[in-house]
């Protein structure tokens, strides 16, 4: 069905599946056997101490980082297959980074339009219409002609979200997207993500915003030193954590 990937035995309705994923950088093991399933429309949050491998996990899912061992399947494509069509995979998985990484030489609207035009080769007029619609969606109507340097951090981050959405991905991943923002602008970005989740977008969030995770997540994963220590609905994980490491971490951040 999907270009460049073989169908896998992993269960049917999961959009993202990981089985025993291992990854080391040199001698440091960063992921030590991660397994998880994310169903269509699910919102999962990944929390854990710094250096526990959260960013690496997201980067493995869209093949920015190759894994050493294990299997990852995204929207029917086996990410870990040697014949993976990376470009096809990345059309299905959007990722937004902490540092926005907008293209500074393009306006907000051009940032949103670039990939659909040059990667998907779609008609420019059609794309522009889509881009304006997405700018409205992230509540940035009127800022289309601004360059990233003229926007606040929160506004840039919302443009980055719109830019990812323009590829019409099936899964959106957010890597600590509010970590570099002022408290006031954090809210507007979280609002955008909340609305996306409500629209039924499959979301994977790495976040330090525990309140937001509790509110929005269907499931929360707590990772430490490259393994998932425990996971469950936010009520359970935040309310009555079973593992002492989770308890210690939560005491620290809450």
């Amino acid at each position, binding site marked *: 069905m999907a270009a460049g990937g073989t169908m896998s035995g992993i269960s049917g309705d999961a959009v993202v599946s990981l089985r025993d994923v291992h990854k080391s950088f040199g001698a440091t093991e960063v992921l030590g056997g991660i397994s998880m399933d994310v169903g269509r429309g699910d919102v999962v949050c990944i929390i854990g101490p710094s250096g526990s491998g959260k960013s690496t996990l997201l980067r493995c899912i*869209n093949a*920015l980082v190759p894994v050493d061992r294990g299997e990852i399947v995204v929207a029917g494509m086996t990410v870990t297959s040697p014949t993976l069509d*990376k*470009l096809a995979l*990345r*059309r299905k998985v*959007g*990722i937004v*980074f902490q*540092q926005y*990484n*907008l*293209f*500074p*030489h393009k306006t907000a609207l051009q940032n949103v339009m*670039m*990939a659909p035009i*040059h*990667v998907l080769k779609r008609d420019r007029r059609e794309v522009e219409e889509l881009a304006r619609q997405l700018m409205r969606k992230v509540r940035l109507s009127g800022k289309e002609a601004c360059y990233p*340097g003229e926007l606040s951090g929160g506004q840039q981050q919302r443009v*980055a979200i719109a*830019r*990812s959405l323009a*590829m019409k991905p099936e899964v959106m991943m957010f890597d600590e997207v509010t970590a570099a923002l002022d408290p006031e602008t954090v809210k507007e970005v979280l609002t955008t993500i909340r609305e996306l989740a409500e629209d039924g977008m499959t979301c994977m969030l790495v976040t330090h915003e525990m309140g937001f995770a509790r509110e929005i997540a269907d499931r929360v994963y707590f990772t430490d030193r490259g393994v998932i220590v425990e996971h469950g609905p936010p009520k359970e994980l935040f309310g009555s954590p079973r593992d002492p490491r989770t308890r210690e971490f939560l005491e620290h951040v809450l």
Partner: protein
Amino acid sequence: MSRPFAVLLPFRPGDGLAGIAGHRADRRAAAGLALAAGLILVHAAAHAATAGAKPAVLETLWRWTPFLLGGFVWNIVISALAMAVGTALGFLLGIAQISQVRAVRAPSWFATQLLRNAPWLVLLFYCMYLLPFQLHVFGTRIGIPDWLKAAFGFALPVMAYVSEIVRGAIRSIPAGQWESAEALSFTRSQTIWMIVIPQCLKRMLPAWMNLYAIVTMASVLANVVGVSEGLTAAREMLAAEQRVELLLPVYAYVLLWFFAYCYPIARATVFLERRWAVAH
């Protein structure tokens, strides 16, 4: 008489030799040179005024100006062509230097280093003697004039410098730009040409303009390998006039032409550097 003074006026005499090691060394040295050139002209003018019968030095210079300019134009043609060819090739060489393929990266690095660390005059000699004086294309002979060969000779070091400028600028772009482009499915060459290079242009422009000014000044080297240019014209004029007192004023006059051409470029470079330093 008033012409050289008009050039002199804006500069304070003390500036000429001071602060060579400082940040504005280039500008001050240039100002100093202009000062020296102006003084020589004035001196020559005074000398000629007392000499009597022969036409005054300035008058002679004025009469020969079209001829001298005709030579100087070749310095501009050669250097501009060298920059055009060298920049186009250097761009590709610079991008090849960051190739993921070792077999492309290593030779481009080597070529860059080799050309960048070779004396320009040697490269010039190589081009003069290695390039044929004519090409056979589909049975017709196309001559390659000497000035064209010289332009290619200068294009070699330009290529190497541009290659380094491009490589440096590309490396100065934050890794996040590459990563988000990759995450958006841009291919590597799309990322380079549509995202990285456009951001580099601004960073490269001051260094590139600086290079242009240097190449223009270096273009007199073409004279050594027998190509006619500004300095050749000056020599021919001196040979025709056979007057010792013209020697220094004529060279000073040629120098002034270079100054008038290169100094605004240097100033514009400084201006752009300052303006864009604030931008990021």
